[in-house]
């Protein structure tokens, strides 16, 4: 094999592109020669390494050695080098001695460089891909693990609360006020809008049905009770889950990425006390307050529909509402709201603290925080309804 290198041995300004070609010859003695020709640049469609593998397997007689011929090669870049690395792997798999003398010098250098450092893939964490059963099993194990993590986190929150009550928790009062302001006052506009509209929707649906029985006035009862017992707290909690819970997860998650949480730990400051506690307190305090406000807006929304569509007078509507709602209903709503607030805060902070150390992980933490919060809010709503019934509150 002559070592005739083509004139152009390095990437340069591309000459008129010639289609890259690959041809395998095998002599009767079993010496296979791979002829490479044309322009091998990544911008073009290059021959697949699998074609060569098929050619090698199909060749008769079975090749015993491989040489390379690059006399037809006009221009090349990484496309060629990557292909040749594949050729080398094929040759090693088939125990073919490979003669690289026919390669341009530059390519030989790059190939050597690519093989200079031993493969460290043994150090990479490898994922095991099993079948369907394996997937189901690992999902189930993941669920058990994540339940365990939530329990552990709740335990830490409880310890942190104990430190707070004993006055040993280290947190900044300024952080607590800021959290209260962000979770409370700044949520007013969105809570108003959503609650008002939900009140209107309830009244509208109710008015149409009740009109059939000539019982229009009971729209006020329907809207009032539904809002105070359940919808006010639910609407507030879901708005807060999307607004505040997501913000907590993103904020604490980013602090994890930037090692800010580590920086707190090395100072002996517990992230639970310092980051989670103020947020948790803020939401447990603010959710019931926002719920009272949401109830009011819901009733107003219902009244608007009652007056405009139901033909009721405003006084009539409000009197009926007042007669329908008792303290027991309001208390149910407020107790639920405190639970929901705690759920939103715990989900947000939990996912933030669990966050991995990348930008993608922050996104996942935020999504997961909202999903976790909403799932547990709905579960809590169901459980609380049963409990309130058993207590005779409703």
């Amino acid at each position, binding site marked *: 094999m002559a070592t005739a290198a083509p004139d152009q041995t390095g990437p340069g300004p591309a000459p008129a592109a010639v289609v890259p070609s690959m041809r395998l010859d095998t002599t009767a003695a079993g010496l296979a020669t791979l002829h490479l020709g044309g322009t091998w640049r990544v911008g073009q469609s290059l021959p697949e390494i699998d074609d060569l593998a098929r050619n090698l397997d199909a060749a008769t007689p079975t090749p015993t050695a491989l040489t390379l011929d690059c006399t037809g090669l006009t221009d090349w870049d990484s496309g060629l080098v990557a292909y040749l690395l594949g050729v080398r792997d094929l040759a090693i798999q088939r125990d073919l001695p490979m003669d690289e003398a026919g390669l341009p010098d530059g390519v030989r*250098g790059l190939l050597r460089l690519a093989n*200079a450092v031993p493969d460290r893939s043994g150090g990479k964490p490898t994922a095991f891909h099993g079948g369907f059963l394996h997937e189901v099993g690992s999902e189930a194990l993941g669920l058990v693990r994540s339940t365990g993590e939530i329990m552990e986190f709740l335990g830490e929150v409880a310890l942190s609360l104990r430190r707070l009550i004993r006055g040993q928790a280290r947190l900044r009062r300024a952080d607590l006020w800021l959290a209260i302001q962000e979770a409370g006052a700044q949520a007013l506009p969105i809570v108003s809008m959503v609650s008002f509209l939900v009140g209107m929707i309830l009244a509208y649906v109710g008015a149409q049905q009740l009109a059939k029985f000539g019982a229009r006035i009971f729209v006020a009862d329907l809207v009032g009770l539904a809002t105070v017992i359940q919808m006010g707290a639910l609407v507030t909690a879901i708005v807060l889950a999307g607004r505040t819970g997501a913000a907590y997860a993103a904020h604490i998650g980013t602090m994890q990425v*930037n090692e*800010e949480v580590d*920086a707190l730990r090395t100072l002996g400051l517990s992230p639970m006390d310092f980051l989670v506690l103020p947020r948790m307190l803020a939401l447990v305090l603010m959710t019931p307050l926002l719920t009272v406000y949401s109830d009011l807006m819901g009733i107003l929304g219902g009244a608007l529909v009652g007056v405009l569509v139901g033909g009721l007078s405003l006084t009539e509507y409000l009197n009926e509402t007042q007669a329908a709602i008792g303290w027991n209903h309001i208390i149910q709503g407020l107790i639920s709201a405190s639970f929901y607030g705690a759920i939103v805060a715990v989900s947000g902070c939990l996912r933030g603290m669990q966050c991995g150390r990348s930008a993608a992980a922050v996104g996942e933490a935020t999504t997961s925080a909202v999903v976790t919060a909403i799932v547990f809010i709905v579960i809590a709503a169901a459980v609380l309804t049963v409990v309130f019934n058993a207590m005779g509150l409703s």
Partner: protein
Amino acid sequence: MSAPAREFQVQVEGLSVAYGDFLVQQDLNFGIRRSDVFIVMGPSGCGKTTVMRSLTGLLPPAAGRVLYGTEDLWTANEAERARLMRRNGVMYQSGALWSSLTLGENVGLPLEQYTDLSPRQIRDIAAYKLALVGLKGFDDFYPSQVSGGMQKRVGVARAMALDPDILYFDEPSAGLDPISARHLDDLILQLRDGLGTTMVVVTHELASLLAIGDDAVFLDAETKTMLATGNPRDLRDHCPDARVRGFLTRGEATPPPDPGAPLQ
């Protein structure tokens, strides 16, 4: 290891660190002497930062002990560990400043939490520490408003806030231009000379570690353990292990088996 001329302030005995099943480093034995600049060096990805996380109380080791004086950091209860950790200051690779606080508040927060100083006194001390690292008058800036090099220096100021016994630096010169890196080295030496603080520097920056290191440990990525310990300049000239000499001379002492043909 030569007989200790001075007491060891931190002693590491049979330390192994791992993430789950993935072993990072094992069988580490070394000591850090008071007022030394101690270098933790090794190639990228060998686990220097992970070892530092075990020394500073962030990552429980898979095996072995980390002794501060006579107290074992990892068998101590949580309150004890928090007390030991508070005697350390740590400067993180990225600065890790609390992004919602100003630079002054970042430096002042440890003081606010652990001293009875008045807000005014805390502000003054924070301003003084910022001035020490060359950032006089930057108290009211937020971390995002200053450059990466400045953030690192604020990280040093914050690490020094409680006048720690030991200051840990994770890759102090990474991402800094040569002059800024040199300034940071000078700062480390001046602080050591002025305050007697022990400095533990995780780095692979040769110029820096040869200039400031009194003592060092070399961690290897392939054997996953330490290859040598001692003064980095002595190691460069006399270390029996060719890999250590090679690292400390940028590979000139022991050319790799196949240096690769020059590219055309």
